[in-house]
């Protein structure tokens, strides 16, 4: 076994550093969580104290549950995020496969054109997008958000995935062709499983910005029945008074699903980061 790695002092320092980093990274989440269970006064008096018998209160959660249809917002956010990720991964992977696998006229140009989207923020086109959504009657539907987020995520997805797909062995795909697999089967059964770590990376990169986005929900789907969590939580932040109990409770609940999705993808992600190293 590697000497440097098995040295107890090194191990200790390594773990010490990692634990310290974890604590720092988790600290804000921790503060939000504990304060969401406290009454208003104690939040400001002692923000770092744990809730005790005196300061414990679930008033924030009660407010959130009563005000507006919180579970609907939650569901909307979840639908939009999962659907957008699905389309980004599906179309991104398909485009990447075509660009890396097939020789056709304009292949290079097409790749560059798709990569252009990485450099130009989609928000620049907000007005045009809004006009388009109005014209197609998609305003105040979840589809408006899903379409926009899919468009926003595709460039990076195509860019990353096509790089990975180029590395998938030609022989393997050719073996599939000789064995009579269709191009779709080769794509879904042979190539996709081999680029799964890259897909997880793309999913994580896209997930957080979509989940947290306020801009497009506010502009494209502000109706009560299509509000996302982030937009829904805004009602508690007023110009003059902010209901901190409610805001913290809403935030605490908003963290959960992202955490779950992240855990699902991160196993694949870690495999992706280390796959080059151990091969």
């Amino acid at each position, binding site marked *: 076994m590697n000497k440097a790695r098995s040295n107890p002092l090194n191990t200790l320092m390594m773990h010490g550093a990692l634990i310290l980093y974890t604590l720092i990274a988790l600290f804000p989440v921790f503060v939000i969580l504990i304060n969401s269970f406290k009454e208003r006064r104690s939040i400001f008096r002692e923000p770092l104290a744990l809730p005790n018998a005196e300061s414990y209160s679930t008033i924030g959660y009660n407010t959130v549950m009563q005000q507006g249809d919180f579970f609907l917002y939650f569901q909307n956010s979840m639908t939009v995020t999962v659907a957008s990720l699905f389309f980004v991964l599906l179309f991104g992977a398909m485009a990447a496969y075509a660009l890396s696998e097939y020789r056709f006229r304009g292949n290079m140009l097409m790749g560059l054109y798709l990569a252009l989207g990485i450099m130009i923020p989609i928000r620049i086109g907000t007005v045009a997008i809004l006009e388009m959504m109005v014209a197609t009657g998609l305003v105040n539907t979840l589809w408006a958000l899903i379409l926009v987020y899919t468009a926003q995520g595709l460039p990076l997805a195509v860019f990353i995935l096509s790089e990975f797909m180029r590395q998938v*062995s030609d*022989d*393997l795909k*050719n*073996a*599939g*062709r*000789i*064995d*009579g*697999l269709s191009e779709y089967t080769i794509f879904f*059964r*042979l190539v996709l*499983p*081999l680029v799964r770590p890259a897909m997880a990376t793309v999913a994580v990169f896209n997930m957080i910005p979509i989940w947290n986005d306020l801009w497009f929900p506010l502009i494209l789907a502000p109706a009560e029945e299509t509000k996302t969590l982030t937009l829904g939580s805004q009602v508690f932040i007023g110009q003059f008074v902010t209901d901190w109990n409610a805001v913290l409770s809403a935030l605490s609940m908003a963290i959960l699903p992202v955490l779950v999705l992240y855990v699902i993808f991160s196993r694949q992600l870690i495999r992706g980061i280390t796959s080059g190293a151990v091969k």
Partner: protein
Amino acid sequence: MTALSLQNVNKSFGEVHVLKDINMEVEEGEFVVFVGPSGCGKSTLLRVIAGLEDASSGEIRIGGDVVNLTPPSKRGIAMVFQSYALYPHLNVRGNMTLALKQERQSKAVIEERVQEASRMLNLEPYLERFPSELSGGQRQRVAIARAIVREPKLFLFDEPLSNLDAALRMNTRIEIANLHRQLGASMIYVTHDQTEAMTLADKIVVLRDGRVEQIGSPMELYNNPANQFVAGFLGSPAMNFFPAELVQDGDDRTMGVRPEDLFLDDSGALAARVSHVEKLGGDTNVIAQVNRHQITARLFGQHAVEPGQDLRLGFNPQNAFHFNGEGMRVE
């Protein structure tokens, strides 16, 4: 009956002309080996035959039918790749049966063929394992078994042994020769290892820069090479080439003599200074300089020759080949 015939096959990638007017035939049951230096188009030719690349022009017939427009899976071929190319998500059995399932063969037929192929290649204990759990040699045997179960009219091998170590390569080579005998199928085999080429082939096709240089049985090519390239490519150590005027004044041809045809001879035609000696026990390879031309002599048995020594090498004139300025064989 011809298993495969190629007529004026050309292949270009954009500007790059890779295959140039390839004409050849593979008879039923024949073992044909493609040899040639790296980048000469062996793999490309194989892929054109398999249908993985379209020929730019020319006609490809397999078993008498023109197959230019037939997809790879319908050409009645099976291919074994250098990198094995096993399906990582399927176990050995799954790898072997995938193509048969695609062809909608009955369960009984599939099972019978898997049994047969795994018996031939000693794969029975590994049928439930995944490719990642096999050694390199076992993976290559699975790849060959996957080709066998399809019962193709024509087998295509692209340097199947080049990832194996020397001992395993020899075993697998013998295994492939046995398979060819048992199956009696037509096989095309790409390699740049000339031992493989000489030992396996009924017929060797020598390629250079996308052109066929010569086609013939191993001994035909060895005894009667059409040009300097073929003469130099087959045989190990390679044939010696030197200006014929070293032997005869005013002769502007190039002379070629195989290392095994040279012998020590005090009245020999070539005066040489030994620069290096390889003593192999059974043979002694003497590398010597003749007028700044390097010449290798392969002497049978053991000889007391040391570097720096001056000696004379002779050969039988019948064993010498002559080539003109373009490298073509002349008398």
